[in-house]
């Protein structure tokens, strides 16, 4: 892209990076190329296009599954302590206390890269203040960093830290090294907030943990007093193919038509479901019963399909420079190095 010799299609999660591409005139909106396919968007779920729409025009078509956030839990630990998945934040805190008292780690986290901690922030801010808080920041209102939803969410996060609910050393653990998942399948940790890909990773790390039915999952609990909908979601909404402007118009048309017909098709959807992906296609609804991991796939698909608001991970939604600042400041919150107020003022100053 920077070398000015882009391929016909590039894959992107949309958001802040896409905006840079659009401003630089590097990618093409799809409407013109797809004029012969009216209503092609309706074959995808409602949440699909928000993050690839710039100035009212759609620039991308989902090519890979969606990655929503959810809470994973250890069924053996929960049943041993007679716990059931918590529906509210207060129950969740009570469960954490019980788990800790019994000598287990309540929450596994690998926050060396900052993004796993960001999932906590995204879910809590949404539950507390609804999706409009972050949406307005993405649209340039950096004063919203002072929104009480941030201070409250960060206070709640720091309380989890102070109560010792995360495993020791969570801030230095790289999630991709597998340690947070290992804490679960070695029966040391009880819960982990993560995107749905934890499931397929767990299958390569310790398939027996899943086949014995030890891995459980539930949606992020509601937060009393918050204005956000309990069904709101956050995560990597989609991976999209964008079509580059330097491609000749005839090839662009061909590429767009291929994407618009192939990606929502029943056969492509079936192939994605086979990999425990969550397709953003309406065709997936009818096929959920025939997947290798039916109950998990059904659960995650419904998380996405029924979410009133589905927020793109903030580090992708924001312009890259703000995303870097956000991750650094949030890591400081997670190691109690910066107060919630410092977080807000640092972010406001940066935006």
């Amino acid at each position, binding site marked *: 892209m920077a070398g000015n010799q882009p391929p016909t299609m590039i894959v992107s999660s949309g958001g802040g990076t896409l905006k*840079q591409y659009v401003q630089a005139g590097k990618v093409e909106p799809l409407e013109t190329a797809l004029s012969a396919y009216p209503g092609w968007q309706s074959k995808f779920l409602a949440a699909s296009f928000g993050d690839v729409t710039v100035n009212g025009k759609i620039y991308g078509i989902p090519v890979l599954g969606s990655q929503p956030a959810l809470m994973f839990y250890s069924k053996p630990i929960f049943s041993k302590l007679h716990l059931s998945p918590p529906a509210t934040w207060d129950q969740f805190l009570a469960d954490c206390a019980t788990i800790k008292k019994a000598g287990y780690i309540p929450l596994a986290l690998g926050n*060396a*890269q900052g993004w796993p901690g960001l999932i906590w922030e995204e879910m809590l801010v949404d539950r507390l203040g609804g999706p409009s808080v972050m949406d307005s920041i993405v649209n340039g209102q950096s004063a919203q960093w002072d929104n009480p939803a941030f201070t409250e969410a960060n206070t709640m996060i720091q309380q989890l830290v102070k109560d010792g609910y995360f495993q020791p050393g969570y801030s*230095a*653990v790289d999630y991709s090294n597998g340690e947070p998942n290992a*804490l679960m399948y070695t029966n040391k940790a009880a819960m982990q907030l993560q995107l749905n890909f934890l499931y397929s990773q767990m299958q390569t790390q310790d398939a027996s943990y899943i086949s014995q039915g030890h891995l459980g999952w539930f949606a992020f609990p509601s937060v009393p007093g918050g204005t956000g909908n309990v069904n709101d979601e956050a995560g990597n909404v989609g991976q999209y193919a964008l079509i580059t402007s330097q491609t000749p118009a005839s090839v662009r048309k061909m590429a767009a038509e291929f994407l618009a017909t192939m990606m929502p098709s029943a056969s492509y959807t079936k192939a994605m479901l086979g990999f425990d992906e969550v397709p953003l296609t309406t065709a997936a609804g009818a096929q959920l019963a025939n997947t290798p991991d039916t109950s998990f796939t059904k659960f995650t698909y419904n998380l996405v399909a029924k979410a009133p608001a589905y927020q793109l991970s903030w580090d992708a939604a924001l312009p890259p420079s703000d995303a870097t600042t956000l991750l*650094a400041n949030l890591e*400081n919150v997670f*190691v109690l190095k910066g107060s919630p107020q410092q977080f807000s003022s640092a972010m406001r100053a940066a935006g």
Partner: protein
Amino acid sequence: MPMSGIVHSGTTLRTPPTPPGSPRAGTVGAQRAGPRRRARLAGDVAGVAPAALLYTFLLVAPAAVALLLSFFSWNGVSAFRWAGLANWDRLFHDGGAAHSLLLTIVVTAVSWFLQTVLSMAAGLTTARPTKVNSALSALYVLPLLISTAGIGLIWESLLAPSLGGMAFLAGTFHLGILNKDWLGDPSIVLYVITVIVAWQFVPFYTLLYRTARQQVPRTLYEAAAIDGATGFQAFRHVTLPQLRNTIASSSVLVVIGTLTYFDMFFLLTDGGPGTSSRVLSLDMYNEAFSSTDFGYASVLTIVLVLIGISAGAVLLKVARFSASARAHGGE
């Protein structure tokens, strides 16, 4: 025109040689030596050319591009937009960069001390060619054989808080002191990485000190012994002065190497937690490749280069000054 001097050289030889000291010697000498000098120059130029070309294209040109880029706003996909001094102005209001610079200075100072002392100690104690010392030296060299990425991964898994080697030792042998959040505690992470960097590079400097010590003439120690010098006095008045050049060159290498060192910080913490280990080189990398602000990243690059060059110049100057002071009898 590298060949011209050689072409003309035939004609100059016709002039009869003039004895030195004669009144015309200056001018005739100049006539004779001119083309020869030119020929020698041509040879020099031809000899230096490959290195100069490499240096120009791999160092000078990129530095010039970075300098140019520092006056532009560019995110990698946008058009270049003239930014004037905006990027440079930002440098003076950037608390993040100041913090990173401070961390870099701390790491450099601690690294210089740690690596110099450790490598000197290891180098001197293994200098005498015995079997044990040869075995030890071979052991010391081992870290040099591992790539930085390998060292990073090894230490990351050793220091992993729950399932790492340190945690295992702490649990098995009840060594509570090993049970630390090595890379996750903002108050120690910088020093932990500095020690790992020392572990990586001390072997190299040990090699330097070992060889340098072996080249100190034995007669000096014999003379010192005759004068009744104790072991420490011999070290202070014979070994240290003799190692002066080695200390100078190893110091320049440590300081400049550490100022720009990036790999281990990137591998182990990526600057975290938060910004606790975000040294200036990492800040520069993040500005360029995470924040895609190539203009400002270029400013940081130039700052880093200038600091490196000045530090190197100062160190060499100090070393040369004290060397010449010694030559004139000062100590």
